[in-house]
């Protein structure tokens, strides 16, 4: 029986010798071809929308959030109603403007994964562009995405498709549509709308001086919020994470001094971490109004020695004391200035210290420094910063990341400020203390680790004013931290007026974007033609199945006869 079976099998094999040889041949070929290209599917990534807000009735940033268009890069000829993708590395304002002029549907800017690896000149350039992007009227959505492998591959494919456009023949274009991918960018969220009743929160705490009522008060202020072209990307390390960390360190040091009777000074210290600092110091403004206009007794009303605002202190070898009116001799303000000068020259000679005088320009939309808010209300105030001009791009940039703050410099600046402040508070110079006396040493040392960990915590999350909710963990932690050292820590809230709002924020700042692979309509047409051809062949084949049947019959009979 087996023999007979073998015979039949043999005849079968003979009749189908072609498929069989194929069967043996194909695996060998497949092995040579190697592994297939990686599977590609719709890519989903998080995008961060550009700022959208109104300040004093003036709109800033983009006005749109909805996006559903095909992707292109700037190399393409036609950009209208397309989503233009750009990489930060080769981003330029001219290209950005060109895209917007050609009425692009949207702009997606791809940021590198590690911001610290970006070359300095690109960072500098982008910092300068940021305010211009915000000031420009932008009707289309502008998004920022952090690059990953998939997104880069999408960008590369789009770039290839964009560059090859227009210069090829029709046949090449047809072939290209079958092989290359287009990408449809779609955001999932709804249109952006104004957030009503948003509360900007500020925190206040105090250390009461020794010696009853009517003591002079020193106010130390730093705004905690950050600002950049996209709220979700603004970590604001130097501006103003450094200011807040110095404020917290000062609170720690003076709370220790104020616990001992011998070192309990006759000054009230009032600490204020203000919110909305990047939006014309809204938090400070309301705080002053509340304290000066609405209540009868407040530390701010009675006897304010001076207000010290801390802003951008984490870099550079210079310190500038910004004033709107040079302090008169004999005032505490002047004393503090002198002490600062002395501490810098005697203890940190590498630091260049200077006083910068700039009058308040009420005609401008934005106040330059935080102390101007106090100066308007006739409180003696100044801002200390390593920046010479308030226009520096660093104060409003998403490039201001943790790596741009040098912990050593921050510690040194903290020490200079703390030393000068102590000398004023305890009147040490008049008591004859030497200029190079280091008060904060040994147990009372400025703790660099403390400053660093506070900086790490501050920069671990975006602190844009639109994102810091009054119940957010950030504010809770800050409040907890302040109440560890200070008394009477409480929150102050600002809400924009309903009828004539001073600031309006918009939502939809963080979205999920999908990149769908798509083909042009011509491809479907081409495919339809191919399928029609295939079906035609199938029809003919089925119609003439008899031919195959007969051939097989003849072959099998022949083999049988043999």
């Amino acid at each position, binding site marked *: *029986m*087996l023999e*007979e*079976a073998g*015979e*039949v*099998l043999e*005849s*079968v094999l003979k*009749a*189908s010798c072609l*498929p*069989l040889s*194929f*069967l043996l041949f*194909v*695996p060998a070929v*497949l*092995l040579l*071809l190697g*592994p*297939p*290209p990686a599977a590609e*599917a*719709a890519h989903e990534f998080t995008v961060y929308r550009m700022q959208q807000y109104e300040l004093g009735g003036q709109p800033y940033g983009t006005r749109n959030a909805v996006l559903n268009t095909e992707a292109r890069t700037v190399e393409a000829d036609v950009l209208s109603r397309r989503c233009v993708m750009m990489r930060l590395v080769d981003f330029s304002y001219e290209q950005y403007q060109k895209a917007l002029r050609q009425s692009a549907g949207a702009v997606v800017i791809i940021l590198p994964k590690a911001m610290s690896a970006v070359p300095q000149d690109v960072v500098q350039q982008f910092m300068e562009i940021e305010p211009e992007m915000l000031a420009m009227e932008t009707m289309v959505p502008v998004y920022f995405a952090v690059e990953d492998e998939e997104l880069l591959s999408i960008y590369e494919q789009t770039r290839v498709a964009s560059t090859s456009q227009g210069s090829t023949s029709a046949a090449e274009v047809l072939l290209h549509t079958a092989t290359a*991918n287009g990408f*449809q960018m*779609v955001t999932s969220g709804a249109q952006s709308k104004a957030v009503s009743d948003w509360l900007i929160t500020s925190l206040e705490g105090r250390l009461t001086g020794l010696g009853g009522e009517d003591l002079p008060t020193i106010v130390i202020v730093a705004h905690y919020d950050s600002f950049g072209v996209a709220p979700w990307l603004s970590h604001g390390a130097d501006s103003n994470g450094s200011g807040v960390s110095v404020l917290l360190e000062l609170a720690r040091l003076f709370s220790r001094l104020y616990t001992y009777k011998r070192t309990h000074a006759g000054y009230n210290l009032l600490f204020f971490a203000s919110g909305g600092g990047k939006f014309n110091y809204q938090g400070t403004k309301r705080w002053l109004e509340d304290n000066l206009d609405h209540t009868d007794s407040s530390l701010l009303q009675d006897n304010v020695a001076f207000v010290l605002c801390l802003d951008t202190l984490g870099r550079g070898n210079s310190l500038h004391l910004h004033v709107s009116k040079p302090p008169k001799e004999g005032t505490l303000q002047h004393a503090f200035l002198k002490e600062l000068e002395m501490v810098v020259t005697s203890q940190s000679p590498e630091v260049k210290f200077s006083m910068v005088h700039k009058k308040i320009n009420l005609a401008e939309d934005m106040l330059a420094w935080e102390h101007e808010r106090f100066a308007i209300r006739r409180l003696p105030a100044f801002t200390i910063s390593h920046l010479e001009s308030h226009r520096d791009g660093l104060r409003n940039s998403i490039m201001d990341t943790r790596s741009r703050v040098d912990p050593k410099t921050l510690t040194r600046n903290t020490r200079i400020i703390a030393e000068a402040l102590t000398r004023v508070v305890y009147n040490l110079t008049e008591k004859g203390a030497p200029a190079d006396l280091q008060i904060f040493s040994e147990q009372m040392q400025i703790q660099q680790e403390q400053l660093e960990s506070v900086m790490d915590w501050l920069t671990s999350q975006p602190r844009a004013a639109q994102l810091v909710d009054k119940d957010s963990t950030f504010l809770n932690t800050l409040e907890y931290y302040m109440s560890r050292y200070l008394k009477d820590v409480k929150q102050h809230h600002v809400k924009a007026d309903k009828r004539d709002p001073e600031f309006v924020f918009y939502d939809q700042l963080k979205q999920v974007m999908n990149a*769908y*692979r*798509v*083909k042009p*309509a011509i491809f*479907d047409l081409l*495919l*339809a033609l191919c*399928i*029609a051809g*295939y*079906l035609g062949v*199938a*029809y003919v084949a*089925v*119609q003439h*199945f008899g031919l*195959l*049947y007969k051939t*097989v*019959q003849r*072959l*099998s*009979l022949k083999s*049988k006869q043999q």
Partner: protein
Amino acid sequence: MTLFHFGNCFALAYFPYFITYKCSGLSEYNAFWRCVQAGATYLFVQLCKMLFLATFFPTWEGGAGAYDFVGEFMKATVDLADLVGLHLVMSRNAGKGEYKIMVAAMGWATAELVMSRCIPLWVGARGIEFDWKYIQMSIDSNISLVHYIAMAALVWMFTRYDLPKRYRLPLTLLLGLSVYKTFFMESFFHVFLLSSWTALLVKAVITGFLALSSLALFVTLVHGN
């Protein structure tokens, strides 16, 4: 992509069935209801298979990426029920051999097409995202039509009373191949990591081989004696 793309995929998947039905002369036999009955049997058999699998086969928890050869083999063995189902369909129809085979295969394959490819095509091919897999799925449905015709022919030959003994071994071999084809190919693709297009090509080639061999056996059996 668009409705047009769905139309393309739909035409590619369904028209060969329609052509086969029209040109094979089934329409002249008024075999439509018989095909529907075959489809119903398909549904019944699949339900039984699923119940069996769910009852006796634990879910594979070997982690992602690992391939459970034994489990998959056992699952493929359950597909033997398909052969029984096809036999059931053919035994309930009276008529010539070719007619029985075609009715069973057409009903079976069409039921599978409607059940397992209609919804993915409708949902997937109309979405924004373009993917070749819907075109591949449509081509695959053409291959499975050929596969089921060959399988039905093999079952018909195997269950004939007057089957000469020497045919038993090749028929068994071919039946085994047709049942374990999916399993073999899955394992093969898993080991060699083929792209979906090459996989489809391999599938087409193997099915072609199976079909031609069955045809040769059929011809020798029907006309040889």
